[in-house]
């Protein structure tokens, strides 16, 4: 229940920063050490508050749980955070995300996919930690860095890879591409190229959930929506507007910030007046949580609570996951601005390595079992590439399909018939 967060009260504070949420002088301390500016500033904040996690609208306090799991682990208590099955499931999902993205990079450089491709390497813990807790009817909304969100939600690797290759067997028939992964079956609502424009969509999906329960009287409708976006988006108007509406109407949504500190070449600290994004939640009347996004178990604990809150109708939560992308912004980004020391720091906190260590140390799995999983994923990814390679490219006739759900929208032609009845339409050669 609220255990994850009440535990935060008791965790020792390894760092001297122990502010209450009201002060805004954090930033002065953050900038006091200019040499370690980019490495240290946004991460070493351990704020606690004395309130419980179940908050009334007004009290929105800020909690941080980064140390929770560590405490539990070090006590070597009999209660582990996950069972063996869960552990293996999480491991498999992390490895799938990593292997898939690595294959994307390969395929891109071999000229199998084009355009802007944004890879998720390093951030897998956020996707796995959150999405593996969802049901199929729950929705996920992402940004252009959406391959792994789609995979975690259950979209087959074949469908995603085909989409990237621009083949007609892709999840969007090849019409969307890397930045527009959609799946009706798995409730992946996109894939958006402009940052911030997915957040209102997610808010709308959450609104539908509430509407179904309260207007359509589907009493058991407790679908939750997760909106994933980055640190750069948190300076965008749509972010704030949706925080307001979601809190106002207590929509069943969780806003997940994947703060990887960089928006292409713009450091989060250079773009944001108050870089502590989780603090912005309480300003709108929702809890704001900061979590170590490189640790899938910590993310999972926070996610459980946030998703549970939403399911119970208690409203939205803002979760800031501190994470990092190992590769550049996209495959076209030379990634020259980031400090190699910073990269090395986070590479040492690779979420896959961390979970592997946890599983083995706690005797949840053996090396052999994990190797089996890795091999299985390799085969899945290879199969996906093969499938995508062998799939057909879209025929010309596909051009005009799907522009309108009702193709009468193309209008009435000079001959009095609807233009969509013209055979040139089905051939794709009509001029629209």
């Amino acid at each position: 229940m609220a255990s994850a967060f009440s535990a935060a009260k008791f965790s020792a504070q390894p760092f001297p920063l122990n502010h209450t949420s009201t002060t805004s002088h954090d930033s002065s301390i953050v900038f006091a050490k200019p040499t370690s500016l980019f490495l240290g500033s946004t991460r070493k904040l351990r704020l606690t508050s004395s309130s419980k996690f179940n908050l009334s609208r007004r009290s929105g306090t800020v909690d941080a749980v980064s140390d929770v799991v560590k405490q539990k682990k070090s006590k070597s208590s009999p209660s582990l955070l996950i069972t063996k099955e869960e552990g293996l499931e999480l491991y498999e999902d992390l490895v799938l995300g990593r292997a898939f993205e690595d294959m994307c990079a390969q395929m891109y450089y071999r000229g199998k996919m084009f355009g802007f491709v944004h890879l998720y390497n390093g951030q897998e813990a956020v996707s796995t930690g959150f999405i593996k807790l969802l049901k199929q009817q729950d929705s996920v909304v992402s940004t252009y860095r959406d391959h792994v969100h789609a995979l975690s939600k259950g979209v087959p690797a074949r469908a995603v890879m085909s989409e990237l290759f621009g083949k007609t067997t892709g999840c969007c028939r090849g019409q969307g591409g890397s930045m527009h992964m959609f799946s009706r079956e798995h409730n992946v609502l996109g894939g958006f190229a402009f940052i911030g424009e997915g957040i209102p969509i997610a808010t709308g999906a959450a609104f539908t959930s509430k509407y179904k329960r309260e207007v359509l009287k589907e009493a058991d409708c407790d679908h939750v929506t997760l909106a994933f976006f980055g640190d750069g988006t948190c300076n965008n108007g749509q972010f704030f507007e949706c925080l307001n509406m979601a809190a106002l109407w207590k929509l069943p949504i969780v806003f997940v910030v994947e703060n990887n500190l960089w928006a292409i070449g713009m450091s989060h600290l250079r773009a944001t007046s108050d870089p502590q994004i989780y603090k912005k939640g309480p300003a709108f009347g929702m809890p704001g949580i900061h979590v170590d996004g490189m640790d899938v178990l910590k993310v999972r604990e926070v996610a459980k609570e946030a998703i549970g809150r939403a399911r119970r109708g208690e409203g939205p939560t803002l979760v800031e996951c501190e994470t990092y992308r190992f590769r550049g912004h996209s495959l076209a980004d030379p990634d020259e601005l980031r400090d190699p020391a910073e990269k090395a720091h986070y590479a040492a906190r690779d979420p896959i390595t961390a979970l592997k260590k946890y599983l083995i140390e706690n005797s949840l799995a053996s090396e052999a079992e994990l190797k089996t999983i890795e091999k299985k994923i390799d085969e899945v990814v290879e199969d996906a590439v093969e499938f995508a390679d062998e799939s057909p490219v879209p025929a010309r006739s596909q051009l005009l399909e799907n522009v309108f759900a009702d193709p009468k929208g193309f209008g009435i032609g000079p001959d009095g018939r609807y233009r969509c009845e013209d055979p040139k339409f089905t051939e794709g050669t009509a001029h629209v």
Partner: protein
Amino acid sequence: MAAIFQGVGAAAPLSSSPSNSFDSNKSVFSPRRSFSVRKRASFAVVRSDGIVNLNPKGRSAQRLISNAVATKADSPAASSSSKPGHELLLFEALQEGLEEEMERDPRVCVMGEDVGHYGGSYKVTKGLAKRFGDLRVLDTPIAENSFTGMGIGAAMTGLRPVIEGMNMGFLLLAFNQISNNCGMLHYTSGGQFTIPVVIRGPGGVGRQLGAEHSQRLESYFQSIPGIQMVACSTPYNAKGLMKAAIRSENPVILFEHVLLYNLKERLPDEDYICNLEEAEMVRPGEHVTILTYSRMRYHVMQAAKTLVNKGYDPEVIDIRSLKPFDLHTIGNSVKKTHRVLIVEECMRTGGIGASLTAAITENFNDYLDAPIMCLSSQDVPTPYAGTLEEVTVVQPAQIVTAVEQICQ
């Protein structure tokens, strides 16, 4: 039927004063039956918009024929006098259409600023919140981009929102969502998600509302692939288009006009819709085709009276569907008259008239005896001063002059 004829006669002073302020409350105006006694024969002309949608489940009666051939005045198909009907103002007609659709389908909901408790800035949603509740008629904060996006997200997940822009101009703030998500998501998702939203609101040049509240957004939105745009101009087609738009699986932008909300008309009691893709024949004629929409229809009809007195016989078509154009009705007219005048309130540059000119030239160039003339509003921000505002939009006198010129 005689009453209707007289009613139209009395409707003349729709925009009588040169300052172009009309008060349609003065007369029982039946724009649906607008016509004028033709020189050679006296027919009552009836429009084509009673056409039932191709949806086989549609309950609207197929009463009228598609190509608006003149029918006899007392033909039973030509009138709604089988039932008495009821009189409504245009905003009430919109409300009635919206309410009927909300009754019919519980997934239809409304969202916008002040649509709930306030009843809408032009009272189109008056009473709906009381009847359907605060969640179905949602008062949003002032965040157009986000609540439009929210409506689109809700549409993707099963609802059918009607999103109101308090003034169409405010929807400029929602351009991101309308262009990227509303228009594109059905396509980029490979057809997996539909977005059956209706985006509606009052636009157009009002009475000294100032530049920002007098915008015509149809020209900005017309290039967005994946959306449909319609403009209503009479209570009859307002209700019909509202209902058709809500029932459509496509995203539809419904343009209303600030100055037309108080038009009164007698509407049939039975359920009906107006086809989204069809144009409306307002007045058949022989000499010139005048294409118009929204408020300019009334300026055109006023000019038509003057023209008839001068011996001209204009054919007036309210194109209604701004995207896509009804090339059939328009084409038939061009083939008959060989002369085209477009009268619109949109700006000159890149407006609906510009697109329409291109479409007609592309498709019917061989039938034209004269270059297409297009009368649009001036490319200026609408001034506040009444005298200046008057000359930014097209006035009936200009229309008369243009027809005289084109028919030389």
